[in-house]
């Protein structure tokens, strides 16, 4: 250990580098459970609402600090739920774009024509829950999320099938790209309990992509299990009759927010007075989440930490340049006792590079007395 007046050169055994996994509640405020699902009238009024719905913990229309927690989207391989180009030259085929977007981003082979879920269930449509990147940090912690969906058949709980016993991380969890979405719970004393990995038609519920923070749900299996209200083909009609939407997202959700979850509208659009409207098919899942009122999840990230062990020997750092320590007139300690028994009170540790630049600083919670009869050991942690 080299101590040269004020600077102490750090030896190799005084530094420990550790990579630690830090998990926190996923939602704003690092809370683990999201029970309110607010939407923004501003976003609903925008053109992008036909693609996705941003979901907030707090009401963004009254709270300017509200943050997006996740987005909901609905995609259909043929563009069902969006006006066709024949119906509307300006249609952007929002549901088709969403389906192909997630297909390209998530499937091992993006040239696969459709999403295939367990049970050999090919699905022409998907629900997508895309968690805000700032919320999940590095990864949505597998085995530690729970989504409750409510419908006419009751409340059902969905988790992933990483089979992660609480407190014991299963092999391959971190390297796995995808897990199945299943019904079950993680609150058992034994950890994860899977009740069913498929619905009554043997169709898988969906896939979970932890690194991407995305959950893809199979609408067919979810609707069959949870129970959404069918939306009859044909129209136009009003929303309460479960028929084709003929209004804006805001007008649609104003009504749909008060009724049972609606199935996606996948029939041919009839239109109203020659005008054709997007169907906002993400709404059924949103409404089911609102009624389920519980989406628990954790974020996880690896934090690289350096630990510096600051060992202050008994004869070190007992004198101070603090002006109040010094009697500038006499050039002696201002406190008489310190002239024969010097004391200092450490409040700050400065970490320097070879060029004497102060590159990091740590503060103690309260002053630590240092004298010739006292040694100190301070562990300074620096996270990257």
């Amino acid at each position, binding site marked *: 250990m080299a*101590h*040269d*007046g*004020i*600077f*102490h*050169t*750090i030896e190799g055994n005084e*530094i420990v580098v550790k990579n630690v996994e830090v998990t926190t509640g996923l939602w704003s405020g690092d809370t683990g459970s999201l029970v309110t699902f607010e939407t923004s009238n501003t976003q609903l009024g925008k053109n992008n609402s036909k693609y996705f719905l941003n979901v907030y913990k707090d009401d963004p229309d009254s709270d300017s600090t509200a943050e997006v927690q996740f987005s909901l989207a609905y995609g259909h391989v043929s563009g069902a739920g969006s006006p066709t180009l024949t119906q509307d030259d300006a249609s952007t085929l929002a549901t088709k774009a969403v389906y192909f977007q997630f297909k390209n981003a998530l499937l091992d082979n993006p040239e696969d024509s459709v999403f295939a879920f367990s049970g050999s269930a090919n699905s022409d449509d998907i629900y997508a829950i895309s968690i805000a990147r700032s919320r999940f940090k590095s990864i949505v912690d597998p085995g530690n999320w729970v989504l409750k969906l409510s419908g006419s058949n009751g409340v059902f709980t969905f988790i992933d099938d990483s089979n992660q016993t609480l407190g014991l991380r299963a092999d391959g969890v971190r390297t796995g790209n995808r897990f199945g979405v299943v019904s079950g719970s993680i609150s058992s004393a034994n950890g994860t309990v899977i009740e069913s990995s498929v619905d009554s038609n043997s169709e898988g519920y969906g896939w979970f992509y932890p690194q991407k923070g995305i959950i893809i749900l199979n609408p067919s299996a979810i609707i069959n299990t949870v129970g959404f209200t069918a939306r009859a083909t044909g129209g136009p009609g009003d929303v309460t009759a479960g028929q084709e939407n003929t209004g804006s997202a805001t007008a649609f959700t104003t009504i749909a927010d008060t009724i049972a979850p609606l199935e996606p509208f996948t029939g041919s659009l009839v239109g109203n007075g020659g005008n054709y409207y997007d169907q906002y098919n993400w709404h059924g899942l949103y409404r089911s989440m609102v009624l389920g009122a519980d989406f628990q999840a954790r974020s996880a990230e690896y934090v690289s930490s350096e630990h510096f062990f*600051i060992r*202050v020997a008994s*004869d*070190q*750092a*007992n*004198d*101070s*340049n*603090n002006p*109040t*320590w010094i009697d500038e007139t*006499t*050039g*002696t300690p201002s*406190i*008489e*006792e310190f002239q024969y028994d*010097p*004391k*200092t*009170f*450490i*409040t*700050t*540790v*400065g*970490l*320097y*590079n*070879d*060029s*004497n*630049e*102060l*590159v*990091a*600083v*740590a*503060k*103690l919670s*309260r*002053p*630590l*007395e240092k004298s010739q009869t006292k040694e100190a050991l*301070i*562990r*300074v*942690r*620096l996270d*990257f």
Partner: protein
Amino acid sequence: MAYLDNTVITVDAVLTKLGRERLSQGTFQITKWALSDDEVDYSLYNAAHPLGSDYYSNIIESMPVLEAIPDETQAMRYKLYTSNAIQLDGRIPELDLSDISTDFTTALVYNGGQSLIFDRSTIKTKTRTNNNGDLTTLGIDEDYVITLFNERAFDAIGGEGLVGVSGPNFGAADPFTTSRASTNRNASNTLVRTLTEDLPRLTLTAREDLTSTITTKIRVFGAKTGATKTFTVTVNS
């Protein structure tokens, strides 16, 4: 039988502005530490405490400490030193910068092109040994660390230290002639140079292209004693 106290104080460090800049440049390293007692006012040490000597420092030790300030110019103002390591033997060090000025109570003012020169041979670390206020030069060989709080006020040549990744390390290459483009200044605005035996001189030349007057500070401290002097400089536009 009581438990032994095996407490290790653990504290979290935060990167300073300069530390974050070095991290982004890939030149981040930590090689040494120092301690300070910033925020402690020793007049709170009460040797007349009615409960006796155990309570002399009670007020200081009970005081909560502010969070770390992530600014390299604002933290570590008063450094603790080891008297025995530098043969101070209880004497208190003090910097003598009389070669630069004898009055630091008001700002030193520079016009564009004028230079402020720090020379290791003329900066003295002194002590007051005879209790009458007279300064005596301390016979130790000490490097001096100079921190310019806002390097946009001056062009700097000399001393030892790091510069931006794309800029020349003018300290090592040619301390007296190499300059650098203003685009290579530290984003943090803080310039740290050390006067060493090999690179004993730092010249700060007031910039001539300032569009507004800059008032900033310079801190000089001994790399062994920690004796510090901070003063204000103004560079006119």
